[in-house]
């Protein structure tokens, strides 16, 4: 597996805390992801995975703690802010319009406008330019998608996932968060998504992968961060642990040997 610039930090979280009312959802969570690294975020339901992802993608604000992107402290107050610092989230429902073709979905609300300044002011679309870039974005992922003109509802689950990943990468994301990308997929399509994750990480993108599927984590991730009751209980290299170890950490049956 080819990895690039593994020693450069893409994103670093330090002592992230978040409470809802009296419930402490996140307690001093810290970890970092290097460029080109795939990190699995594991944990049982209610362990704080979703809350953490929402803090990174701008939906929630952490109560305290620091997020650094490319070694610079950032304030992520909204999903738009997250995008601006190079964080893209691939949502579980993929956030795509089924009736639209791939090209239209890739550029949803970030449409390329016509070059003519008057038409541009009206919001006139430059469909050709978007199609051209859509084609490029899909080629970059070597994905097996028939055409950028295909409507999303004609695609398989794996192909849809590929389009969602292409959209994230197309926007120049340095950090891509994926929420259960293979949850609804069969074996072969999961394998295709794994392949895609490898492709984008080899291009230097840092990936945070939320997953329940241990097999998937073991196959794609370099490291795993395990949350248990809002705390980070393990930050381990995948090559050092077995699936059983990970399950133990997730359920709280074992604690990491320091």
């Amino acid at each position, binding site marked *: 597996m080819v990895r690039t610039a593994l020693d450069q930090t893409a994103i670093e979280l330090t002592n992230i805390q978040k409470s809802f009312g009296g419930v402490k959802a996140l307690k001093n969570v810290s970890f970092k992801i290097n460029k080109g690294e795939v990190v699995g975020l594991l944990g049982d339901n209610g362990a704080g995975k979703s809350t953490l992802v929402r803090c990174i993608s701008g939906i929630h604000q952490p109560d305290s703690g620091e997020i650094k992107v490319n070694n610079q402290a950032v304030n992520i107050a909204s999903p738009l802010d997250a995008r601006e610092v190079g964080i893209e989230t691939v949502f579980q429902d993929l956030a795509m*319009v089924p*009736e*639209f073709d791939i090209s*239209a979905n890739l550029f949803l609300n*970030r449409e390329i406008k016509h070059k003519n300044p008057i038409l541009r002011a009206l919001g006139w679309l430059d469909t050709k330019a978007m199609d051209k870039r859509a084609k490029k974005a899909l080629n970059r992922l070597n994905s097996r998608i*028939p055409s950028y003109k295909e409507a999303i*509802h004609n695609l398989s689950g794996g192909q849809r996932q590929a389009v969602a990943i292409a959209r994230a990468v197309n926007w120049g994301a340095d950090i891509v968060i994926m929420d259960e990308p293979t949850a609804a997929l069969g074996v072969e399509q999961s394998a295709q998504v794994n392949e895609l994750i490898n492709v984008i990480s080899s291009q230097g993108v840092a990936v945070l992968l939320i997953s329940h599927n241990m097999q998937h984590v073991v196959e794609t991730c370099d490291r795993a961060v395990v949350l248990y009751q809002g705390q980070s209980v393990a930050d381990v290299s995948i090559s050092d642990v077995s699936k059983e170890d990970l399950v133990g950490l997730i359920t709280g049956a074992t604690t990491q040997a320091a």
Partner: protein
Amino acid sequence: MITLTTNINSVKKFAVKREAFIYYIFLAVLVFFAILLHDTAFLSLDNFMNIVRQTAPITIMAVGLTFALAVGHIDLSIGSVVALSALVGAMLLQTTGIPIAVAGALLTGVAVGLINGVLIERLQVSSLLITLGTMGVVTGIARQISGLESVPIINSDFTAFFGAGDIFGIPSLFIWTIGIAAIAYIAMKKLAFGRHLLAVGGSPKAALAMGIKVTRIRLYALVISSAAAALAGLLYAGRLHGARYTLGEADLLTVIAAVAIGGTSLFGGRACIIGAILGSWLMGMINNGLILSGFSTNEQMIARGVILIIAVAIGVKELKNG
């Protein structure tokens, strides 16, 4: 891979069929009446210009309603807006000039659209119920301010420009129809605005996640629908040289049938401007044909209802298959 390809092809074929449906039915009805009415003037250019002119307010309402349907809303208040805006325009014309009267009428439409939109978003109640309510309120206001009397229009510039006359030798109603149709087509097909409308109707969650201002887009759609109805009111007033509270009251069913049969989804996410126009002309042609065949107004109403049911049945069937 092979099964996937065949699936895509069959879905594509179906979509093509649905989009093209209006063309087939338009042609079928045309041929039907042409044969049935071969000894009348049905199949003449004059008669077709007549149909286009007579249908102009319906066409413009259908185009406007297409915007509301695109975001997943229905607007039942359009018929009542026709009456109120026509009355407001006609009453203002008695004391002021054309610009103020036209602005007043159009602003009436915009105001009703805004009220519809704000109530739907604030109360989180379906557009069906809210616009049913505003339909009643607006109809009541139209009856109240007119005292159930007709308001005549004697300003001949107004009547020439909005309905009765010609502009450069072309019937003004024809120009209005083509002009509004062109603007609507561009807005829906060529501009980011149309794409956002359809995204909001097709998948509100996706639109929101991608940062589209969903609430605002829905509001715009309802304002467009209502403003189009206000323009239709002015066209009626121009053609009839006056306004009356009954204007537009029988149009709602015709407009919905026209839009639905034209290929626009009644559930949001798919809009077809050309289909809406052809649909409205189809309804006009059927009316025209039924009149020439000697059917009564009541029988025409029955025919419209049947057509709406057919159009909706096709739409629902497609929703299940899609």
